[in-house]
């Protein structure tokens, strides 16, 4: 395994400050392979986390969720994971806590709600609101 980039001197860096997304050569069409099956290099931003940007986080309630995928399409941070047309959860490494997923969730009660960053998912789920009646 080669040195991590943070330890490299000027002589070891890739010329032109070019960055590779993946380790080594790839022999498949990237769009045909889901991210979890790709070999990301340390220089892909996927390897980083921006979770510490948050002060509030979205919590997902799979019981009320209807897999409409609104949250998936409108997440600016590729942090709503959908597989096989089903919502799988929130990627807390990359979620910045913007709350868009909550605002576009159509269910009643919503299947995504914002909670304090330090709240555990279990506690959050146990506090889930009831279905809102018409006019509320």
């Amino acid at each position, binding site marked *: 395994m080669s040195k991590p980039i943070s330890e490299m*001197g*000027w*002589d070891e*860096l*890739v*010329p*032109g*400050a*070019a*960055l*590779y*997304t*993946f380790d080594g*050569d*790839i*022999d498949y069409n*990237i769009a045909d392979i889901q991210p979890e099956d790709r070999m990301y290099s340390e220089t892909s931003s996927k390897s980083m986390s921006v979770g510490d940007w948050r002060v509030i986080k979205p919590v997902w309630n799979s019981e009320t969720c209807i897999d409409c995928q609104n949250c998936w399409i409108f997440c600016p941070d590729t942090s709503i994971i959908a597989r096989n047309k089903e919502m799988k959860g929130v990627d807390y490494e990359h979620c910045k806590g913007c709350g868009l997923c909550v605002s576009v969730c159509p269910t009643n009660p919503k299947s995504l709600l914002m909670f304090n960053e330090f709240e555990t998912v279990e506690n959050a789920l146990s506090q889930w609101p009831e279905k809102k009646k018409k006019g509320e």
Partner: protein
Amino acid sequence: MNKRVMDLKKVEVWDGNMANSQALRQADVDVIAAYPITPSTATVENYCMFHANGYVDGEVIMTESEHAAMSACIGAGAAGGRVATATSSQGLALMIETLYQASGMRIPVVLCLVNRALAAPLNVNGDHSDLYLTRDSGWISIDAFSPQEAYDMTLMSFKISEHPAVRLPVISNQDGFMTSHTAQNVTPLEDDVACKFVGDYLQVNALLNFDKPVTHGVQTEQDWHFEHKAKQHAALMGSKKVILETFAQFKELTGREYKLVETYGDADANIAIVCLGSTFETAMLAIEQLKEEGINACVVAPRVFRPFPLEEIAEALQGMKAIACMDRSAPGGTVGTLYNEISGALINTPARPIISNLIYGLGGRDMTVAGLKNIFRTLDKEAREGKLSGKIQRFIGVRGPELSFYEAQGVQK
């Protein structure tokens, strides 16, 4: 190699622009993106004519400005193929930010720069203002003094630029009009020989290589920028080795020998001028004629302007008692570039010649044999008397009262 071969005569009569165009054609360039500007226009026009008649298999894009021309070259070069363009003066000034971008991104590009004065006032004739503007841009820069050399340098530029140890863009300079529009004998290589000499393009981090997606042109913050600029400078300095290898291979192929620093004159001469471009050849004539007066002079020129051959040029000037650094560019409030670089080269050596800075030939003003002889006579006087004959910087050949600046200080030998 292009499918349609051109049968060239053993000796052709080409001006500097045609020399460029033929070298570009033989080099099998993949994409040329260009914009017309005097006096480089014919380099591109000739090439377009070749293209229209089936002699060029690559693509030609006529962009809407010079900045766009170099931008397209960088994109095409990063995509993974051989690229080139040509410009002068205002066009060079317009594309200046892209020059820094190309070298920083380490994209091989060949730029045929036909040296012309920079406005204002507007002037289309030859001087070195545009060459000097590229000084810090991070490009390798080589200078041709004649159409033959323009052909040779442009051809070699590709080989140097694309070498895996270099991967830096190269400028192939020549004097506007004095070289570009003056037809002289040129002995070209045959198409297949030239193409073989330049070799196949080597792809490195190509955008069109989908096996290895790559991000080009990043932003670096204060924690990374210095390392990348250091690496770029190291590569530019190290390119000297590849340049010398290329010159050696070219000599074997053609018999024509090029050096980092070109000199002409007697080995025991103790006066010299340092200059660029066609002035070198004019000086050769002046030097021969002055032998009748008993004056031994020589002319020294950096063939390779960047990376600057500091050690080699200092070596060539060690024996000099008086040197005139002749700058063909408006000096902009200080001593000229060659004066600075020569003085900088000599200060860390034992040599302590008298050095003056002559500003000459701006906007295509002729530098004649007679004029150079006078300069050498003045240098001869300065060498014998051991002191400058006037101020450090003098304007030569301008109508009006004497224009000179900067007093020498202290005792001179």
